[in-house]
């Protein structure tokens, strides 16, 4: 809303903003970016932090810097596929981030394995100082158990579970993000949680399965 007391004639605009300008929705910004690419940068400003944080939790900050940047470059390139009916671009961006992440499956599994095997006091090439600091912040035992449990999930189940738990997406949003039926989301989530329950119920902290190659 603008409140202009001054004159506005002869092409002259003089005035002042005295109230916050209502920001356009993601759909409006992305639609606008089709003709005015600069508009997409506002989508970046709005969602970069949450996408980066999600990726950092999955593969560590070092890789997240690159992957988050890559996510938005891809999103910009693919902005024509964004559904104008969507209330927020966040699920769509999470979907892109998840797909970008698939090239990093080994990195993720190695990191989870390292946390599970070595615990917060562990060291190694795969766990840098930042990761060790983060691991110390988590309860040591829980962190190791959860890392081990996550490492046991197949990548599809892990994607759905972490989009739900960390991305805070609903089942329908996850379905939209991954372009899969909502029923598939529900079944993958149920299987993931069942596996988690079984693994976490075991009091003994055991090393996770050795990283396996995942075929897609």
């Amino acid at each position, binding site marked *: 809303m*603008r409140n202009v*007391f*001054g*004159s506005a004639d002869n*092409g*002259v*605009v*003089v*005035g*002042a*903003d*005295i109230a916050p*300008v209502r920001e356009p929705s993601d759909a409006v910004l992305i639609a606008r970016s089709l*003709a005015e*690419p*600069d508009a*997409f*940068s*506002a989508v*970046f*400003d*709005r969602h*970069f*932090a*949450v996408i*980066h*944080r999600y990726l*950092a*939790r999955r593969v560590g*900050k070092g890789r997240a*810097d690159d992957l*988050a*940047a*890559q996510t*938005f*470059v891809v999103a*910009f*390139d*693919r*902005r024509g*596929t964004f559904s104008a009916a969507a209330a927020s671009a966040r699920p769509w961006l999470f979907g892109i981030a998840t*797909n970008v992440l698939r090239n990093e499956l080994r990195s993720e599994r190695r990191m989870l394995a390292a946390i599970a095997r070595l615990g917060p006091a562990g060291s190694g090439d795969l766990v840098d100082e930042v990761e060790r600091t*983060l*691991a110390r*912040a*988590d*309860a040591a035992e*829980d*962190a190791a*158990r*959860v*890392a081990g449990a996550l490492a046991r999930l197949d990548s599809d189940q892990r994607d759905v579970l972490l989009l*739900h*738990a*960390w991305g805070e997406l609903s089942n329908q949003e996850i379905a939209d993000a991954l372009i899969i039926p909502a029923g598939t989301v529900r079944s993958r989530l149920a299987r993931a*949680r069942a596996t*988690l*329950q079984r693994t*976490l*119920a075991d009091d003994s902290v055991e090393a996770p399965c050795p990283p396996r190659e995942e075929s897609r």
Partner: protein
Amino acid sequence: MIDDLELVRRFRSEVPNPDGPAWAKARTLLLRAIDVHEGPPQPRRQRRWWHSRRFLACGLAVLIGGGSAAAAVISSERSQPLSGQFPANPGGGQSIGRSGYTISVTPQLQAGSIGWCDQVAVGGHTGASCAGTPALGDPIADGGSGGFSSQGYEYMLTSSQVAAVRIGSGPIVLTRRDPGAPAGLRVAVIVLRGKAFRQRGLYPRTALNASGHPIAFLNSSSAPEPTLSWKSPMGPARGACSLRAPENRGLRPLSGSVLQAVVPDPALLGHVFLSCIDTAYELSAGSPGGRTVIVAALLLDAKHPGTPVAPMPGMQRVAGDPAVLNSVSGLTATVDDTSGELGGLSARRVGNAWLVVAGGTTLQQRIRVLNELRVGSIDLRPPTVPPSAPAGANCSITFRPLPALTEVSQTTHTANGQPVCIQASFYYQHRLLTATVVAGPARAQRPAASPPHAVSGHPHTFTTRFDPTRYPDLYTTWREIGKTTLAVNGGTRSEQLTLIDDITLHLNNPQ
């Protein structure tokens, strides 16, 4: 039963938000992609694009080429002064460089107001409006904008901690001190051209510190100061301050408003004024050619009322009367019949306050009013009777005294079509918290945010977070009490919980 989801949510939850370099690098890569873009993209919905070699090749090329060139790609420029000439338009076309511009910043005068008005002049055209002031909740206060459709400027007031302002993903403006700016504040004046000017105000501003990192958002805002308004033929309302015009001197009070009590605002940044009283006077003598209105106001230090007020920005001493300061510009939004542009503004110190008059047609009229008005004693005592619910309200709240907790007001109103049973405002530490009680099931009152989390150890109490991307510390905490919901906004999450635990809700007319 193991809560597997909760364990997963907690796992690696301490991962921090991206730092400045990560942000800058990613933005640089995106801007490069935007720069090389040609024509609108074509949807390829069915193709599993992330498997394409083209994507991988492009992505790697961008990443390799990106490097650490963020600083070179993201432009920054030093703020223009509040008054000056526009730089030449390098793109040619319509330029306003020759006409120059002037931005005059003056204090708000309406009682209870804390903030600044600006009068802008570009090429013989003028305009003005009033806005807020930098505070802990937002260290950037939007100012005005002006110019031609092809080029113009936008300006902001910032706290002294703000070294630069980033506008959307675009330019970064390095703030500057300016003799026309209020004490302790800086300005950011940026010249915008073409589309950037036409889209001014569209993108969010980010305050950056001297290291180039965003300044953390603090969940804080200012409470409305409690005022009483009046209009002739009513007599002036009685409040914490008073102004008196001697009889038979041609000053007829028309309308005004006054603070009921002076409540300091600890969240303010810089040296800011709080208007304690404003009164519009009609000059019935010595004003040829019809009705002349002058507005008088008494300004206190908003953070520490009763202490000496800071210098008035952008004013000069009047030759022959050095106690009086004058500015050719002045605007005030006061009571209904006197709002708008009022021309000049003059002021003199009265004790630890400023007596300010605006309007009239000449400086002599304003000096005359300044000399004739009498300022009564200022009541700086906190309200002796704490705020209470309005008569007939269905709800009221009481609270146990806590150190650093001050209640400001209790009101009832309607929000989003639903009656608010009671809403109370508090200052806790240096932040404003509001407690709102609404009837009905809690589910209907939940804000649209992330899923609520039950607060352990506090029955029927939940918390949720708003958009964490923009506001990492913005939470709402609420408690379901029977068929009502008590929600607290503002402050930190722990402060919200403390206040909820401290409040007792009274239902006067339970349904």
